[in-house]
């Protein structure tokens, strides 16, 4: 766990296995929520998360694979593709330029 400054997040990746379905839905939602904050949100298969990402959201079951792909990037696991509390908390911190733990 590290304390992260929400305003330092400029590139957020939503990762899932194929990057075809669930991650696309979450990424599109986050894109709208974070458009005003200058955050680029992309979706990606876990095996090809770009190493210049500032933060990765991925399903709990894929978190280990995501950490293996980008060992230096904080990975936040979530359970629910829509409305997950862990995701909501971080979105709020980024919107408000506050710090969060990840």
């Amino acid at each position, binding site marked *: 766990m590290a304390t992260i400054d929400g305003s330092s997040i400029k590139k957020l990746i939503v990762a*899932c*296995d*194929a*990057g*075809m*379905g*669930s991650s*696309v*839905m*979450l990424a*599109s*939602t986050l894109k*709208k929520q974070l458009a005003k904050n200058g955050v680029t949100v992309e979706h990606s*298969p876990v*095996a090809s998360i770009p190493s210049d990402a500032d933060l990765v959201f991925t*399903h709990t*079951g*894929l978190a280990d694979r995501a950490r293996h792909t980008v060992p230096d990037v904080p990975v936040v696991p979530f359970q*629910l*593709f*829509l*409305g997950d509390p862990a995701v909501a908390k971080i979105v709020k911190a980024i919107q408000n330029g506050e710090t969060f733990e990840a």
Partner: protein
Amino acid sequence: MSNETDPTPASLSALLAETSIRLDLTASNKEDAIRQTGAALLEAGAIDASYTNAMLERERSVSTFVGEGVAIPHGTLSGKDSVINDALVVLRFPDGVDWDGNDVRVCVGIAARGNGHIALLSQLATVLLDPDRAAALRAATTSSLVYELLTPDPEDE
């Protein structure tokens, strides 16, 4: 924005054919529902038969339940090779399907190599974050209502 009210843009019906919207089905369990979703994608000419196994494999690693009574079965990264044409299907199970303890009423099956389906999935996310529209999708009995709900908002990219 435009006041045109064409409920079904050509891009939407090309991706989600009217014959791929099936609103009165029953499934004995989750695997049955996924197999039916795979069969609908196969009939739509979207996949070869092996894709259904990739859908089942994906479901075993991470559930595709996304909330509000909706699951979006799709294949794995390796299953992408089994996709022939990008397409979506909408299957509704009015009696519900037990999805690891969640009650699923609608399966949106996805076969995609490219990114053409992103606007539609983005719209699906918008619908599911609005409890009234999510309930309307779960209760939909006509393909025109499904098209209306899933037509991407023109204000989105």
